[in-house]
């Protein structure tokens, strides 16, 4: 069974149709890149999959592990293993990072029938994962994403992914706002999470993140539809030729 199956997905934002019939199947263990020009609907697709308010699905369906994903609340999706790494993670002043992480991780563990961590156990788990991402204790003591640089925010997203152990990761423009070293660190940490069961949807404008996170399949999203699909070589072709041919086509 496919892990994620998107069938003829149409979605509106503020009454405007952004997604115009997306079809996409992701098998367990596969990494798919969704590439496209600005305004093609990439972020809309990621928000629809994560369940953000204000993204109205008008037609089609999304099956996750064979069940209707679109009927689930955002927290249910997260507990079932859907994880969206945000392009712009929000700052939440006043909510401590550790409090947030432990609340989230324990909610997910409880749902999966795993024992919840106490504060001491959790600190140990976080420190170990944080170390691999070059996240100092000082960052963990701050409020969620508050005052973090662009690179720190993306590393914090990677830490959350590592802690929540999702099955379906959606990486929304993870490369935006990152310098080369930070990009490599974050992309390699995601790459290290690849296994036979875990799948990823890497949403990106540029090819560079795909050097570290080599996709099994590449799709071109333009004007709300998948225009073309292929192997990793398609990403290189796009890098060379740009998106002009897809943007230029008549709707």
């Amino acid at each position, binding site marked *: 069974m496919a892990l994620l199956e998107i069938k003829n997905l149409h979605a509106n934002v503020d009454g405007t149709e952004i997604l115009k019939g997306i079809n996409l199947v992701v098998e367990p263990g596969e990494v798919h890149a969704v590439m496209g020009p600005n305004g093609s609907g990439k972020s809309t697709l990621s928000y629809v999959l994560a369940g953000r308010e204000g993204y109205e699905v008008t037609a089609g369906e999304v099956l996750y592990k064979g069940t209707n994903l679109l009927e689930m609340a955002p927290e249910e999706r997260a507990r079932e293993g859907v994880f969206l790494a945000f392009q712009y993670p929000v700052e939440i002043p006043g909510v401590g990072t550790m409090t947030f992480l432990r609340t989230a991780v324990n*909610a997910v563990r409880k749902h999966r029938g795993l024992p919840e961590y106490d504060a001491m156990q959790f600190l140990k788990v976080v420190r170990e994962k944080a170390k691999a991402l070059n996240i100092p204790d000082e960052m963990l003591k701050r409020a969620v994403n508050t005052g973090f640089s662009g690179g720190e925010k993306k590393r914090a997203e990677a830490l959350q992914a590592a802690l929540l152990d999702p099955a379906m990761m959606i990486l929304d423009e993870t490369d935006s706002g990152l310098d080369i070293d930070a990009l490599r660190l974050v992309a390699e940490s995601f790459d290290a999470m690849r296994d036979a069961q875990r799948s990823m949807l890497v949403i990106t404008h540029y090819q560079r993140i795909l050097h570290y996170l080599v996709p099994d399949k590449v799709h071109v999203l333009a004007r709300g539809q998948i225009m073309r699909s292929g192997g990793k070589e398609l990403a290189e072709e796009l890098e060379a030729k740009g998106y002009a041919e897809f943007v230029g086509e008549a709707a």
Partner: protein
Amino acid sequence: MSTSEALAKADTGAPPYLDALADLGGRLPHGPDWLDDLRGRGRAAYAAEGLPTRKTEAWKYTAVAKAGAFTHAELAPPAAIDGARGADFGLESWRLVLVNGRVRPEMSALEGLPEGVTVAGLADTLAHAPERLRPHLGGVLGLEAMPLAALNTAYLGDGAFVHVPRGVVLDRPVQIVSLGAAGEAPVMFHPRHLLVLEDGAAATVVETHVGGGRYFANTVTEVALGHGARLAHAKMQDEGPEAVHVAACAVRLAENAAYDGLVLHTGARLARHELRAEIAGPGAACTMNGAFLADGNRHVDNTLFIDHAAPNGSSRQVFRGVLDDAARGVYQGKVLVERPAQKTDAHQLSRALLLSRGAEMDAKPELEIYADDVKCGHGATTGELDTAHLFYLRGRGVDLPTARRMLVEAFIADIIDAFPDATVREAFAGRVGAWLDGHAEAAR
């Protein structure tokens, strides 16, 4: 006076609550002539204004006259005290406890106060050393346009007297607990506190307001801060759910004095905290921050008046409120910068979170400036929880009620975290958590 009589008085326009003065007879503590004179001025000021109605500008959002009718607590049969509360009232501290406005030495804990520091009952001090009160009692608070403070003055009898001599720094908080206890008859009482910090003294004073039943606590606190004195003054308004709480706090700051105020409202069906601060000496700094959490039909009013009468002063007020159901919040903040108060730096900000459509917030920040070289600002916002924040938390598996709670707690925590004393921060944060637990329970 009975309840029905009080209502009758209100209907005929003659101000209620004065008759009990005669009924009380000799039960108010006797004192020197100046005290009788002060009470008389309170009585006259209250009689002239009466109980404020919504036609009174300063009370236009808060209908205290409709709060019900109350008998003076001294004339009502004694009520049982809620024994469930911890004896330290949530804070390790020196402690003076009042029940219905009367000091209860057997519930108080004042051992080990540093040499020269006074924490005593006001009635006791009036009886034995009234001259210690005379320089400031009734001298910090103006009675004009303060009818309930005037009523308190008319009944001035007991409360707390805190005096910290020159240069003395207290290393743990002084807590003044006001416990309201009403039986079948709704009761009213008028605690009166005087806090005096001489030049260079420093202290943390916490007012804790708790109780049960239908009572009206009408408190006045006067604060006189000497040259360079520093007072951290926190108030936990956690009155019983049927209570009416009206408090006026008047502060005078001498040169370079600092007042750090914090009020947390989690109780009462109708509450008003009014601060009147006078920057009387150059370089003085007045902070008055507040937080309130209200649900049901509860009403919370914070009214502030900061008078910059001297140069180089600063004042900061940040208020944050969380309103659910049909609760209502009021913020009225006025900063007056007088002509001599050059280089004044004054800011005030009111932010409210409305958790339901029925909740309402009225915010009225005002500036009146007569000096030309000042930095002043104010703002007021009312909004809902940030949907982007909620989505982020939920996207990580946190359920909606928990996510909302985390955001509300964070919103209020900012205010509490700014208070200088760590034990107070911890106690107040704990109270916020408990309120949110109770609120979540009630919503279930």
